[in-house]
């Protein structure tokens, strides 16, 4: 602390050859002397006047001075929100949950504290000897008289460089339009073939296969095995994408890896991998790491899932249960439609039949016959009677005529004898020698009476 006090005070002297005595400096020296109760050797080469050792009214108390120093440090923006690089030592985690440690390098050490709330949010668990980058602000713990780093974030050394690279590449690819929402392809609702790009031995694969088995066993999974970390991973992942699209032509591809550190996931930030995801023929669902991990491959994917299991779920929006329910429903519609068709047909034919009955020619015939009978009964009865009457009359006239006709008798061989145009019908009418006329069937001749005596 003393060292710091001196440094910060001396730093306030713009010019070492300044002729005026530095009041603050002298006061601090005096304070320090009182504080430690030892004689101080003052280097007068700085150009100061003799110290006022017996100044009766000290300006500072320990508290006000320390507070002043704290304020000086906290007002200095270059000491706030900084990253400090070093090696962890003296790590301790008391029951309070706060974490205390010292960062050191070859030349110096820095006390650090991380409050419990910040410590709980750390993904990285610090250990003694670890090379880290700590983020925080410099201030003073007044009660202990210690300046220290109030750290809020710890990451392994080098992660910052990686993150910078991540941001640079992200900006580059973003500017290129690789992450545009317009590029995102729709995920098929019912994939037949699901491509999987991941490690053949990882838990991620097992999780995905189990999920697919449970949700859509109808599908086929095609694995393109590839290392998912290390230098060989990016070119292998790119090759897996190309081969999978070319050979298996899947409906959708899952790109997945279980959780890990940012270095473990780094292959998924590789520019080659990101471009392969964007260039894939089949739409890609990424499920890399945990919920909180975002990789550039995630941004390029058509859909980002928080985990491999979630990726397999998103690839199968329709499950076998949905299919069964839909099938039951369509079977029900099928039956009801067929029943309805039969019912309609039955009704239609019943209606037709009734119309047929109404307009049947048989019925008309029946009607006509009935009419005829009716007519016969009414009209023809009178007619027949008249005819009958006439016929009867005729027959009477005929017989009378026939009876009266002389010709009929002559035809039978009879003759009509007349004397002086009078029909002879008695012996007494004639005497011998009288001339008579005899009429027969075809004419008349004369005759003379003899033998009447």
């Amino acid at each position: 602390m003393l060292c710091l006090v001196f440094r910060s005070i001396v730093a306030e002297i713009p010019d070492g050859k300044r002729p005026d005595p530095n009041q603050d400096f002298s006061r601090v020296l005096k304070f320090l002397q009182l504080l430690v109760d030892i004689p101080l050797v003052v280097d007068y080469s700085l150009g100061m006047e003799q110290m006022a050792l017996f100044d009766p009214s000290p300006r500072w108390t320990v508290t006000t001075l320390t507070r002043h120093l704290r304020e000086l440090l906290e007002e200095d923006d270059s000491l706030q929100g900084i990253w400090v690089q070093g090696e962890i030592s003296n790590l301790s985690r008391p029951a309070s949950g706060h974490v205390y440690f010292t960062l050191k390098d070859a030349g110096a050490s820095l006390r650090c504290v991380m409050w419990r709330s910040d410590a709980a949010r750390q993904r990285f668990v610090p250990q003694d000897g670890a090379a880290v980058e700590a983020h925080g602000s410099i201030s003073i713990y007044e009660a202990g008289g210690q300046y220290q780093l109030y750290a809020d974030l710890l990451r392994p050394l080098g992660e910052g460089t990686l993150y910078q690279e991540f941001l640079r590449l992200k900006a580059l690819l973003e500017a290129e339009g690789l992450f545009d929402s317009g590029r995102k392809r729709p995920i098929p609702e019912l994939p037949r073939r699901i491509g999987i790009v991941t490690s053949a031995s990882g838990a991620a694969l097992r999780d995905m296969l189990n999920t697919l088995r449970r949700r859509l066993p109808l599908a086929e999974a095609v694995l393109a095995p590839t290392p998912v970390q290390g230098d060989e991973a990016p070119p292998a992942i790119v090759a897996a994408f190309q081969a999978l699209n070319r050979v298996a032509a899947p409906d959708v591809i899952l790109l997945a890896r279980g959780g890990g550190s940012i270095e473990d996931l780094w292959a998924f930030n590789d520019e080659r991998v990101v471009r392969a995801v964007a260039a894939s023929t089949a739409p890609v669902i990424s499920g890399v790491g945990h919920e909180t991990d975002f990789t550039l491959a995630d941004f390029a994917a058509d859909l980002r899932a928080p985990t491999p299991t979630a990726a397999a779920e998103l690839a199968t929006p329709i499950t076998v249960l949905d299919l069964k329910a839909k099938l039951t429903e369509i079977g029900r519609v099928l039956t009801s439609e067929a029943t309805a068709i039969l019912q309609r047909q039955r009704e239609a034919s019943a209606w037709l039949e009734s119309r047929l009955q109404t307009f049947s020619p048989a019925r008309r015939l029946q009607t006509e016959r009935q009419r005829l009978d009716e007519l016969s009964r009414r009209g023809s009865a009178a007619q027949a009677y008249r005819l009958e009457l006439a016929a009867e009359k005729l027959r009477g006239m005929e017989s009378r005529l026939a009876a009266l006709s002389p010709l009929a008798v002559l035809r039978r061989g009879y003759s009509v004898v007349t004397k002086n145009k009078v029909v002879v019908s008695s012996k007494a009418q004639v005497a011998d020698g009288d001339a008579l006329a005899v009429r027969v069937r075809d004419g008349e001749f004369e005759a003379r009476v003899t033998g009447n005596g």
Partner: protein
Amino acid sequence: MAKIDPKPIEELSYEQAYAELETVVAALESGEQPLETALSLFERGQLLTKHCADLLDKAELKVRQLSGETLQPFEENE
């Protein structure tokens, strides 16, 4: 009029069978089928429904692995 696929139903994939089933139902719903056609559509529909249900019940996820330019069965080592 809906065309009836002459392919034997057992050879249809789930997607094919289901798509045809949908066509069959739509044709029946249109109500424009002669009775005889409607009845044979219905029969076909019933067979398709059963086939689909069988496929769903029996389905087991096929897992294969890309090996060079070919697809090989994938052996899971649990």
